[in-house]
């Protein structure tokens, strides 16, 4: 077992014209499960392949354990990798697939290899598939064999390259749990690459968000969700995405007010709750982006339900999810989403009222850096925008 460290690692292709990874520094603790997440082309796979030794970095150092591995071949790094398309050897049966690495890299006797293959197969519940060829296996079974091939070698680290993206939704959730369970059980340092933020949130001890080859933020899932470092992370993590609107800070009647730029659709009085905004680094005249998570938006049919400030809008679409409903509506030129209780299902075109607590607010400056992130100890606090605690009362913002 080992920690993995990347020190100012870069990777450029085509003689430097394409920078895939830019000055990336990252430390993964021993036994940690780190998820590298980002949109396609963000450099996450390239990063993983550099750790594996399949790509050479154009700059920086990569260390596994206490060794700088830049000049080592993949086979000398003592790592295992699970590929997106599983990369099972088609001409070998499951037994040979799993045992291939042991045969190549260890001096184990055939009997020992056989025993370890059997052990791993029973751990993954694929014992009865050992004599089959990969071609005759289902996607989920192939995935298990690929996992087995990684596990059997007892490596320093597991590298996962979008291993679940070819599976259907149900199987994906099941394998997600399974991988987490096995990783915890074996305690092997793991790096898991995915473009799926939900996978990242549910699986990672920590999440590293990448965009355009640059590390945006690294932290525990809740930290990244609640306190994104910048607008990109805020928008990428969370589904549906955070609602945003561009605004300008103005003084009105002695109060600091955020006013939407594109139209007068939206104003938000920062001082309304009486909380001090003294430490908020916004000057009057600053352009900012205001963000609110869909679950923090409170929607009511009656304006009277709100105690303090609220806005009026028209419902575009209602998407029932069963557990709750998603409501889409326009704010300025943006479409916002609200996650509401399943009982609230207005017709599209209906006029409704919305607000959100001051503490749920995200503010990003013109560069997109987070100025303020939401400060809700308990998401249920959002309910307190309205009267009482049932949610049908009057607002006290």
């Amino acid at each position: 077992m080992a920690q993995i460290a990347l020190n100012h690692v870069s990777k450029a292709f085509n003689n430097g014209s394409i920078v895939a990874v830019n000055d990336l520094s990252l430390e993964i603790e021993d036994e940690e499960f780190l998820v590298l997440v980002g949109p396609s082309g963000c450099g996450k796979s390239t990063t993983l392949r550099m750790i594996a030794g399949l790509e050479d970095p154009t700059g920086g150092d990569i260390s596994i354990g206490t060794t700088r591995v830049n000049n080592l071949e993949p086979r000398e790094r003592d790592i295992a990798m699970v590929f997106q398309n599983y990369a099972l050897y088609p001409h070998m049966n499951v037994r040979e697939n799993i045992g291939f690495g042991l045969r190549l890299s260890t001096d184990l006797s055939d009997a020992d290899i056989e025993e370890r293959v059997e052990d791993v197969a029973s751990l993954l519940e694929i014992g009865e598939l050992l004599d089959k060829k990969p071609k005759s296996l289902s996607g989920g079974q192939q995935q298990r064999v690929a996992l087995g091939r990684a596990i059997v070698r007892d490596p320093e680290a597991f590298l996962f390259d979008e291993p679940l993206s070819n599976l259907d939704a149900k199987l994906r959730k099941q394998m997600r749990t399974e991988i987490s369970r096995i990783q915890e059980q074996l305690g092997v340092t793991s790096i898991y690459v995915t473009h799926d933020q939900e996978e990242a949130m549910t699986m990672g001890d920590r999440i590293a968000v990448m965009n355009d080859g640059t590390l945006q933020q690294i932290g525990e899932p809740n930290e990244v969700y609640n306190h994104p470092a910048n607008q990109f992370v805020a928008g990428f993590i969370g589904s549906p995405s955070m609602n945003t609107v561009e605004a300008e800070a103005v003084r009105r009647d002695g109060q600091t007010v955020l006013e939407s730029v594109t139209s007068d659709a939206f104003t938000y009085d920062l001082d309304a709750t009486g909380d001090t905004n003294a430490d908020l680094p916004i000057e009057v005249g600053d352009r900012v982006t205001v963000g609110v998570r869909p679950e923090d938006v409170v929607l009511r049919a009656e304006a009277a339900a709100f105690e303090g400030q609220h806005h009026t809008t028209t419902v575009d679409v209602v998407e029932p999810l069963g557990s709750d409903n998603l409501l889409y509506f326009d704010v300025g030129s943006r479409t916002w989403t609200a996650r509401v209780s399943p009982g609230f299902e207005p017709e599209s075109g209906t006029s409704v009222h919305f607000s959100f607590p001051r503490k749920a607010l995200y503010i990003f400056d013109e560069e997109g850096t987070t100025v303020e992130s939401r400060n809700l100890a308990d998401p249920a606090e959002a309910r307190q925008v309205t009267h009482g605690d049932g949610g049908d009362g009057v607002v006290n913002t």
Partner: protein
Amino acid sequence: MPTDAYVGGEPEETDQSVLDSVPISFEMLLLLPSIATLAVLSIIPLVVMIYLSFHEVNFTPVNEVIFLGFGNYTQMAADGNFWNSWRVTLFYVAGSLGLQLGLGILIAVMLHRVSRGENLLTSIIIMPMMIAPVVVGLLWQFLLDPSFGLYTYMLNQVGLFVDQPILANSTSALVSIIIMDTWQWTPLVVLIILARVKSIPQHLYEAASVDGATGITQFRHVTLPLLKPAIAIALLLRSMDLMRYFAKVFITTGGGPSSSTKVIGLYVYERALRFFNLGYGSATGLVLLIVTILMGLMFVETIMGGAGDE
């Protein structure tokens, strides 16, 4: 800005494989023996050929090589036989390509239409391609023999070529070698087109049917445009081979009567290795090479979208 991260120590000496210590990439190392072989087998002969094309080479009474400068090339420009051979080649190549392409498309489309027997039929039609050109040449000579040939007999029955040896007439001899090549190589065109026809998704035809296109219209507006790349591949492969090989013509007509079937390959062969005029043969051969390479370039560039860097 990223902060510094831990940097581990350099690894202990590991078992470096011999391959790791070579300065060129592993892939290049694997390719090298082939490149070296081909270089020896193509560049050296090419250089020798260019060299020879500027010389007169004699083997008797003594081996000698005399520098001529552009002598061979000026002689070539004025050589009516040389230009005649190109003219014959043009007819031979154009005629064969036209016939083979037309028949090839027709057969491929028909093969695609039948639901049974396709396997057996393809097995049958690939047979001629596997046969040595010498055997094909001799066989057709046998079939067209004026006194006992099967095809002569059949043509005579409908009143054609009675007492007229087919291979002794300029026009019919040229047509004969075209038909002979068509018999042997239309199958290749069929296979190329058939592979493409099979890959046309069925829903395109269904969509065309919904739009009211059927039969010939459907073929013209759906099938044919999609066959273009395959047609181009077939055309260029066949045209290059028609330029390269001349063994069948050599066996059947020997270029006659009176040079009416003397395709350029045969002409160059005769100059260089029958009359042992290696210098002049090399000069004419170089022209043939350049024409063929230009056609090959077209093949790789336009049809295959480049040799495929991606």
